[in-house]
């Protein structure tokens, strides 16, 4: 169970400013059903250039609802220039803190505000102009860089907690890693990966397998009137076809596993799996 502050609980159970303003000055919509949270923020600007009213509609967990509620309270009475300076950290602070896995809820609040201000000004949402990094949650490099900078993030996991980037298929983790290095100006030098367990390319693998087949396996099989042919190598799966006397030999499966596979594991790669291909 999440350790929510009393303030979070209060804003979740008694959310302020739920709804949508009719003909608002600006509207910001972020998130999606697929992402698991979404927020629509509307605000009304007064004649004095200050926000007189703000309302929200949120689909999401307790901290998403509480962050939205807090946001609407915080922006009232601010000019747009002032509102623009609000960060997700300000929202989290207002709520007495959020569990680290839930920081993205405060980020969503801030982004809705930015989207609403951009909508009022008739300009594109600044963060959306960046390059899309996380396809699962639609997060751009600009959002990630800003989160790293403002919240002093150090790891991919922290970036995920704050922006959700990398929390889906995980394909963009390398890119996030890169952005972390870039922003934190850490040595670009790749730390030499020491003693990486043997990683062979497919070509290398095939060459080595052929060598072992020629040198040891084929001569042994030929003694019994058999032969073997390499058909394919797919990752660790070595597909072979037994020929000659092997085809009708009752022990051919044993030969395949206990002799061929064993030899190849000893001399090429100990993860190889030999299978007979039907050709």
């Amino acid at each position, binding site marked *: *169970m999440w350790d929510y502050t009393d303030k979070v609980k209060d804003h979740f159970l008694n959310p302020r400013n739920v709804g949508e303003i009719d003909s608002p000055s600006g509207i910001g919509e972020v*998130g999606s*059903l697929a*992402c698991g949270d979404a927020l629509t923020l509307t605000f009304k600007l007064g004649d004095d250039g200050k926000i007189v009213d703000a309302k929200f509609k949120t689909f*999401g*967990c307790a901290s998403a609802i509480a962050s939205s509620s807090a946001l609407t309270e915080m922006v009232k009475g601010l000019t747009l220039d002032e509102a623009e300076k609000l960060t997700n950290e300000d929202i989290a602070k207002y709520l007495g803190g959020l569990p680290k896995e839930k920081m993205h809820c405060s980020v969503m609040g801030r982004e809705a505000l930015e989207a609403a201000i951009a909508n009022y000004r008739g300009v594109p949402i600044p963060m959306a102009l960046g390059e899309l990094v996380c*396809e699962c949650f639609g997060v751009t490099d600009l959002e990630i860089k800003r989160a790293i900078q403002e919240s002093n993030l150090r790891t991919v996991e922290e970036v995920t907690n704050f922006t959700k980037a990398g*929390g889906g298929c995980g*394909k963009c983790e390398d890119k996030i890693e890169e952005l972390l290095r870039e922003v934190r100006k850490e040595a670009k030098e790749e730390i030499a990966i020491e003693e990486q367990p043997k990683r062979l390319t497919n070509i290398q693998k095939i060459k080595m397998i052929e060598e072992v087949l020629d040198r040891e396996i084929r001569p042994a099989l030929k003694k019994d009137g058999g032969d073997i042919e390499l058909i394919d190598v797919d990752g660790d799966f070595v597909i072979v076809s037994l020929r000659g006397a092997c085809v009708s030999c009752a022990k051919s499966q044993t030969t395949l596993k206990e002799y061929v596979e064993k030899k190849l594991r000893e001399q090429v790669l100990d993860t190889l799996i030999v299978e007979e291909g039907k050709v």
Partner: protein
Amino acid sequence: MSLGEDRQVIYMDNNATTKVAPEVLEVMLPYFSEQYGNPSSMHSFGGSVGKMVVGAREKVSSLIGAQPDELVFTSCGTESDSTAILSAIQSFSDKRHIVTTRVEHPAVKNLCEQLDTLTGHKHKITSLPVESDGTIDLNRFEESLTDDTAIVSIMWANNETGVIFPIEEMVEITKNRGILFHTDAVQAVGKIPIDLNKVPIDFLSISGHKLHAPKGVGVLYVRKGTPFVPFMTGGHQEHGRRGGTENVTSIIGLGKACELAATKMNDENTRVKALRDKLEEGLLSNIPSSILNGHKTLRLPNTSNISFEYVEGESILLHLDRYNICASSGSACTSGSLEPSHVLRAMGVPFTAAHGSIRFSLSVYNTEEEVDFIIDKLPPIIANLREMSPFWKGSHPGQVGGANCKCSC
């Protein structure tokens, strides 16, 4: 954190864990204090404890139609699962293929995914898909088996939806093919009748705390004649199949719990099932845009998994918590991960529904008043959250993020 007021707890999260039955606690108590002997000792002080362990073994075995010496007591369901699968791949070290499903508990799912690093060998894992109602296609199962298959590990009943798999039929298909069969039956044992006299399965996992015994005790059934390699090596306990001094007190408790389960099996499948059905029908008919997840009838009698579209599960749970109602959710937010339940995703439940899924899992201790209370309290909670949701009757386009998701989720 507790949002609850001082109110009696309404516990409908019995697939997560159960209350220790009072009768179970009672038989356990002396073995925490005066009866502290080691069952392996030569003296009669320890020996009398040993007899209790023997008695417990008989009670557990009779619940599932096994022989007492086919049981190995473990520390939990997860240990039982690990023991079975790791034993099978060591017994058949030349076979490198495992058949499982996409909806297994993490105890099996994550183990299978990590076998390569654990064993140093590459394994081919076939994770069978499920239909939209959570059931499995037997033809597809049969086609997945190969001569290289070392073990099949498929749960008897799903923890999230309660959907029951046709284990008997699947065992029949694998029979005489030199393939070992393991089932994670932690949700099934005690809830539905299981008779291993009639199902020639090799391994079956039980977890004590899912059937009103305490946490920290489990069982692995190993059929007589099935090759076995221990997971924990040490003393001669459990006939050398699991080293370590027995968790005597909990084992005695588990024996009692199994005895009780046998006597309450009928109640579970009639009265509890009727309560579950009443709850389910009450919620589905009173709350629009609510959907049952899982097959309507091929299901445990105690489990109901319902999606409430356009709202999010954690919010629902925390509102229920104010009334001291305990349930669980397959939403992303409750787990701390960012994606909803792998079970619901495997069933193809759309995102509109997956994030708003709630599982109620009942036990023989639930009452009709509790069911009525939930049917009364939940509809306004959903209505209130939907009022707040931009998707409810709204036209939120959700243009930022997720909409063009290209990953497998």
